[in-house]
């Protein structure tokens, strides 16, 4: 039997007061720069412009929008079709700012006046706008002309986006005040003109003949770039998957 060797306790060096203070300062510096470092990570998505977002009506341009938005979500609260959502942390400095995913739920100006603008406490959604015609969110573009039903001379029967689609739209002829679900409103069209039919802005989009032949049923949706506000209603209603018409975010009208 051997006596167990007395375990040598590691001597913990006692720090003097000065050393302690220095350690505290160093750790504070570390913690402080750590927090600032994390906060600056928010710049990466903004710089790369990874997610170009469709902003609500009246949104100021680009970085100024991120600067001026107080990230309170009051615009989201007033939207009658729930088109507005708030960005998450993947949007960097855009965290908490509102955006619209037009394909899922477009702004169709169901509110008549621009409620989100009225709700905005900071003018990030510019208070200078009081009519939907003044809004400039982007411009609709026929991005997949070959798939467009009207350009093929085809009609459309059934639900525009299928039975599972959750989006809503205000059909003035059915209910002047309340938006109804898209999947409760089937169509039966000889020639598909959904993007023109449901566009909330007068004369923003029309079907034009593709040639001089009066017997040719085919038509091409043509965006009037002096009028289109880029709300995305056409993008939402387009029954083709993926949509033939999409919003070019941030594109400006030729004339205002």
């Amino acid at each position, binding site marked *: 039997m051997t006596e167990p060797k007395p375990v040598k306790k590691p001597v913990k060096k006692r720090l003097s007061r000065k050393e302690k203070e220095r350690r505290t300062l160093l750790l504070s510096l570390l*913690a402080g720069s750590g927090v600032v470092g994390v906060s600056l990570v928010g710049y990466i998505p903004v710089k790369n412009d990874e997610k170009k977002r469709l902003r609500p009506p009246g949104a100021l341009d680009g970085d100024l929008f991120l600067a001026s938005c107080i990230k*309170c979500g009051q615009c989201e*609260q*007033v939207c009658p079709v729930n088109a507005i959502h708030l960005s998450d*942390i993947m949007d960097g400095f855009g*965290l908490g700012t509102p955006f619209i995913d037009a394909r899922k739920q477009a702004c169709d100006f169901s509110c008549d006046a621009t409620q989100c603008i009225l709700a905005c406490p*900071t003018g990030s959604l510019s208070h200078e706008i009081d009519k939907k015609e003044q809004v400039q969110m982007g411009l609709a573009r026929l991005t997949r002309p070959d798939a467009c039903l009207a350009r093929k001379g085809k009609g459309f029967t059934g639900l525009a986006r299928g039975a599972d689609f959750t989006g809503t739209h205000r059909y003035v002829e059915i209910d002047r005040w309340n938006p109804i679900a898209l999947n409760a409103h089937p169509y039966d069209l000889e020639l598909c003109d959904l993007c023109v039919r449901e566009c909330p802005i007068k004369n923003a989009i029309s079907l034009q003949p593709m040639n001089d032949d009066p017997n040719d049923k085919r038509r091409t949706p043509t965006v009037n770039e002096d009028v289109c506000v880029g709300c995305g209603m056409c993008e939402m209603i387009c029954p083709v998957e993926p949509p033939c018409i999409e919003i070019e975010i941030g594109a400006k009208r030729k004339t205002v």
Partner: protein
Amino acid sequence: MKRALKHYLHSLKIMLGAKPDKPAKSDYSEAAIALHKFKQTPAERKIRREKIREELAEKHVSYKWRKWRWTSIILINLMFVVSYHFDVQLVEGALTASRFFGFHMADLNSSLQITLAQKTIVTNLVIGVVTVAVGWWLVGGRNYCSWACPYHLAAEWVEMLHLKLVEKGWAQDIPLHRGTRTVLYVVFAALAFITGFTVFEFINPVGILSRAFTYGLSLALVWVGILLLIELFFVRRFWCRYICPIGITYAFIGSTSPTVIHYDLNNCLHEGECRSVCLVPHVLDMTIKGRATDVTMDIGADCTRCGMCLEACPTGALSFKVKGLGGLL
């Protein structure tokens, strides 16, 4: 008057991170000197020791204020949620900016950030900021932290757990320098101004939490979780004590507030129970034996008016006071 001004400036200095020093001899009032001297007499010391022994034997526990405070935090944040989900329009928005029955309210720090970032003064914000500033000034300033901020409540629960872990040796409380918060306040203000982005809002757990309550879960909550983990294992009340610029903003507002915690040297046994529970123990420096420069004193700017010191104090040396209303609460 001169003493009041000195006390005020001292409270600002301490709020910004200075260590509370032993006051100079000339700072003491005659009554305070006399009382300190009286407390040092052998007879008095014996009485005090006796009192402390008695008091420790019966273990004084009270959560008189805490239940009101927790209710206040939960109610304020619940109002936002209820307003949106049941469309009753009490308070729409989030803690960063809202409408209270249609009237603008704006968080002081968020407003500062966006004003610096966009370099424009917005009228609605001025209205919102003035309303909020006057409101919180009346009730105490930094009690925004302890009576409204949802992160404070989460941090308070984590702190309880943290203290248990420390007891078991599974966690530690690494002290940091309180000046960190002041430096960060300046850094974030400068960053907003220089970059034109509201950099702080990207990591602001108050905004993240407040929005999550109303608009649903977000990935950003992971950041709040990380902060709470730091507080659980390494630094007690890391965010509120050492980082949050919102706290400084409201502390400035509260520095001249009529609602304060009031200290009475007569009743104090100098055990330090109050300092051990306090989020900002530096404001309770006068409760250390010999430090009170007057017989009664108001607690300084950085105090969150949470009332935990009142609950911890067995002798009623601390109380809520509303200046100008005379009677103590």
